[in-house]
């Protein structure tokens, strides 16, 4: 899954925590004014500014980070969920066990869970939801259920899933849309309405403008800290900052790093920087000449000044391999590639490409910062880069489906998506049997640490093959007005869990 925004960071709840966090990052540290940590107001409404509006609300059938970001954990819940650090934790399940052979997953459901319709949740609802994902290829997560053999409900509070072979990623897949639980036989039109089990209900969707959630007062767990949440969709970064400054927002997510100083200058916001699994990926068409030549790919990577690029983007950090810090198998791979213009030139000469014309296809919403840096870096080694900025739908057709491209840039935001480099049919066109075998072993490995070690080994191979370049690991900046507490900080471009958020009484 790709995300359409220049990723930034996250956010924070309390001013003190924010100060410490921002001080640890390269982001300019705010000088927060004394934050009132007054008594939380249970009747408060919190207004959150976001960039990308969902196209519809049917999370079962529509892909997109915008949808997952607001719906999962707030409206819909799965048996398990993930924390801001991408750790898996129980949600609708009170507990779960995995058999030593990694084939059988047993979940015990929490008591007293009800859907928003008032109907009690039972294990039969879980079985029906999962069976549908397994059987219906148009449901999101269908591919993740390929190795599911049976889904059973031995009693009303237990669900048992057996796999045909162990899959280290299966539990994580259950934290996504495929693992959400819906009421059996429900006739709600999920495109515009909902019937989840979460701490919020959908009260209104004004398309092109706002989505409003209200606290679910009959929630089975601890009730949410605010009465109402309004998501205000503002696709233009500058307009978002203006809206924050004129006081219409309590929180602004995905602040453009270049605009962050404007918010800081007002002295009315606390800015936080959060980690993400966003990988600013410069894809090489590995199947197409001259990029099928490893010397050309290495030369392109050597030509990029990654430090300068991160500085130009304004937030985030360098990364030199396919796995980001928040995912299993992460390893610092900075020894694989350096910034070396002379070496790049000699490699290109050796490959017979002293003068090379390449095209970079990039979805238009990413702006011009990254292409500008690449054009100038590549020009220094004799590569003339033509930038082709296209709409996302066009990108999907030309690059993703038809593989008609030389270089492409997108932000791959999905956690644990290393498998794309083990899939020769993915648009990277990267085909290394050794990587594929290591990845298969990593999935089949039941011990998490051993699995991560195998992933790390495979990731190193991918980087050494220069299958792509990773321009940066995105960070996400969030601006909060003082008084907002408990707002998540990391990974908020894929999950904004609002249950614990509070707003101080004014």
């Amino acid at each position, binding site marked *: *899954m*790709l995300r359409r925004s220049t990723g930034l960071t996250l956010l924070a709840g309390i001013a003190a925590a924010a100060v410490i966090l921002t001080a640890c990052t390269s982001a300019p540290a705010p000088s927060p004014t004394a934050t009132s940590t007054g008594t939380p107001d249970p009747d408060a409404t919190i207004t959150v500014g976001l960039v990308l*509006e969902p*196209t*519809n609300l049917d999370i079962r*059938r*529509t*892909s*997109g980070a915008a949808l997952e970001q607001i719906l999962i954990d707030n409206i819909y819940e799965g048996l398990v969920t993930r924390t801001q650090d991408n750790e898996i934790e129980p949600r609708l399940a009170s507990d779960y066990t995995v058999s030593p052979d990694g084939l059988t997953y047993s979940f015990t459901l929490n008591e007293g869970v009800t859907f928003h319709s008032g109907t009690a949740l039972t294990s039969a609802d879980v079985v029906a939801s999962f069976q549908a994902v397994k059987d219906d*290829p*148009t449901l*999101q997560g*269908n*591919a993740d259920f390929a190795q599911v053999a049976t889904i059973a409900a031995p009693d009303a509070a237990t669900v048992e899933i057996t796999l045909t072979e162990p899959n280290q990623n299966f539990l994580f897949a259950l934290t996504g849309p495929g693992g959400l639980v819906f009421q059996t036989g429900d006739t709600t*039109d999920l*495109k*515009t309405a909902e019937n989840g089990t979460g701490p919020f209900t959908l009260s*209104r969707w*004004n*398309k*092109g*403008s*706002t989505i*409003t959630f209200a606290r679910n007062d009959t929630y089975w767990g601890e009730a949410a800290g605010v009465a109402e949440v*309004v998501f*205000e*969709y*503002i*696709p*233009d970064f*500058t*307009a978002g900052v*203006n*809206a924050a*400054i*004129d*006081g*219409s927002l309590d929180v602004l997510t995905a602040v453009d790093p270049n605009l962050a100083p404007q918010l800081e200058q007002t002295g009315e916001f606390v800015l936080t920087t959060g980690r993400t699994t966003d990988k600013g990926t410069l894809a090489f068409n590995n199947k197409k000449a001259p990029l099928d030549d490893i010397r050309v790919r290495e030369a392109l990577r050597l030509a990029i000044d990654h430090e300068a690029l991160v500085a130009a983007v304004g937030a985030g950090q360098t990364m030199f391999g396919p796995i980001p810090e928040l995912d299993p198998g992460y390893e610092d791979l900075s020894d694989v590639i350096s910034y070396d213009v002379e070496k790049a030139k000699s490699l290109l000469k050796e490959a017979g490409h002293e003068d090379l014309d390449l095209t970079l296809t990039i979805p238009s919403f990413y702006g011009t910062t990254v292409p500008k840096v690449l054009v100038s870096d590549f020009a220094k080694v004799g590569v003339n880069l033509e930038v082709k900025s296209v*709409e*996302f*739908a*066009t*990108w*999907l*057709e*030309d690059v*993703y*489906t038809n593989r008609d491209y030389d270089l492409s840039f997108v932000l791959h935001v*999905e956690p644990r*998506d290393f498998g794309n480099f083990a899939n020769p049919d993915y648009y990277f066109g990267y085909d290394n049997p050794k990587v594929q075998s290591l990845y298969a072993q990593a999935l089949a490995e039941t011990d998490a640490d051993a699995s991560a070690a195998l992933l790390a080994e495979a990731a190193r191979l991918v980087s050494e093959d220069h299958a792509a370049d990773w321009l940066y690991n995105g960070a996400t900046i969030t601006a909060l007005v003082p008084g907002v507490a408990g707002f998540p900080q990391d990974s908020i471009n894929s999950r904004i869990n609002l249950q614990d958020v509070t707003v101080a009484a004014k």
Partner: protein
Amino acid sequence: MIRYALTRGALLIAGLLVASVVIFLSLRVFPGDVAQLIAGSEATPTQVQAIREALGLERPLFAQYGDWIGGLFRGDLGVSMLTGASVGEELLQKAQVTVPLGLMAMIIAFVIAVPLGILAALLRGRAGGTAMNVGAQAVAAVPVIWAGMMLVVVFAVWLGWLPAQGFPRAGWAEPWQAVRALLLPALTIGIVEGAMLMRFVRSATLQAASQDFVRTAAAKGLTRTAALVRHGIPAVGLSIITVLGLQVAGIVVGSVVIEQLFTLPGIGRMLVTDVGTRDLVKVQSELLVLTGFVLVIGFLVDLVHHVIDPRQREAA
């Protein structure tokens, strides 16, 4: 008169039919489709194909066009491929933002252009008149988006008088808030369109000044200015109506940009979003409604002209 209206009406319908074919076909040459967007970038080709079939994207173009036009004749604008919601209903909802925005912009343009245009004509040849003329030319050349950003900086960010973006959640249930939300965007379009209109009013006034009947009035003892104000300007009114009609198209185009900038949930922003998501049925109906709107305004302007202007009536 009736014959003129019928002929002109037939032209209107022919124009709409041609527009429908052009709109339908031109959207088909876009790369990318809504099925791939729904499925996402992790989907298999089989999954995308299944969605494509479910949406009817695999059917022959002729059948798709027939469905759409057939629906239009029954007053059905179709449903969104993405949300299944009625396009007609959503258009009506978004019109509650765009139509008042357009009207406000038009009124502002009018209020700026008419007095200033006449004044500039009266001051012709003097320094003040030249300055006004040059000023209008400069403002008319300003891109709407830049004018909008400047107004936001001054009135929303510095002065904090008006909201920088958005429309009240309750819509027109909060009339004052709704008007406040539309004021800056309407000013933006209104000032730029008003500058264009002002230049037109000026030249139309000057032209009127050289007409025989004004000269006759002056010969009867009125001052030049008085002759112009009493006899020339009423004659100018007619051509102003024509130009205002033509400006409807400009305001529709301006609203696309301005709704994006001010995050207003109107027709312009809906259109941009729907093109981006390749929601073809929605886009084609929206475009046809907008085209129809502009054509109908042109039709009405022509009719009014025909009724008011005796010379045209004789010619027809």
